[in-house]
């Protein structure tokens, strides 16, 4: 059982559609990150959220950290084929010394032209 549950696991949409990916846990995190990973590459950090209720925007991507710091969401507006990839959320558990990131299982997104 993963500490961070991501949904959906797979998502296939048409170019121009909007989508939301969810990352949920029963545990509290001191911070939470979202990564994007392409085939054959390592994860690349998109954003870090730290404060409960925080909202961050990165062009067409909007990230939100839940008030209780147990969950997060990633919303993509007007998806493009270049957004295709594996999206991973990862958190630093509040009771951990900060040495370990716990990752979700990932959401594999395909955006068709």
């Amino acid at each position, binding site marked *: 059982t*993963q500490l*961070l549950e*991501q949904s959906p696991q797979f998502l296939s949409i048409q170019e121009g559609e909007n989508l939301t990916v969810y990352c949920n846990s029963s545990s509290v995190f001191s*911070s939470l*990150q979202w990564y994007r990973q392409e085939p*054959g*590459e*390592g*994860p*690349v*950090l998109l954003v*870090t959220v730290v404060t409960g209720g925080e909202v961050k925007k990165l062009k067409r991507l909007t990230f939100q950290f839940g008030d209780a710091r147990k969950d997060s969401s990633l919303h993509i507006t007007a998806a493009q084929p270049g957004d295709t990839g594996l999206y*991973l959320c*990862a958190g*630093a558990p509040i009771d951990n*010394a*900060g*040495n*370990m*990131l*716990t*990752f*979700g*299982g*990932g959401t594999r997104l395909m955006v068709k032209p």
Partner: protein
Amino acid sequence: GAGVSQSPRYKVAKRGQDVALRCDPISGHVSLFWYQQALGQGPEFLTYFQNEAQLDKSGLPSDRFFAERPEGSVSTLKIQRTQQEDSAVYLCASSLVEGGVTEAFFGQGTRLTVV
């Protein structure tokens, strides 16, 4: 190079063979992490080094897994007597700060296939 470099990129090992995976972190980075990513899964923590000290090895799945970072720079992950379940991508990440897992940069990984 400017990023975290891992070698080899791909490794095929026969079951029972020993393998060694190398990670060259970003120069000057204090913290180094190893993760294991099975096919279709998110990465799972293996071990953490602060300089040459291995401060956390709680994620190593068995005593066949061993990691070292003798001079606080390059790290090697060694797997003895490989098994099929060891097949995965092994990711290395480094960070400038102590315990800086939230500011870590990942390498491209080594894909290990045990046949």
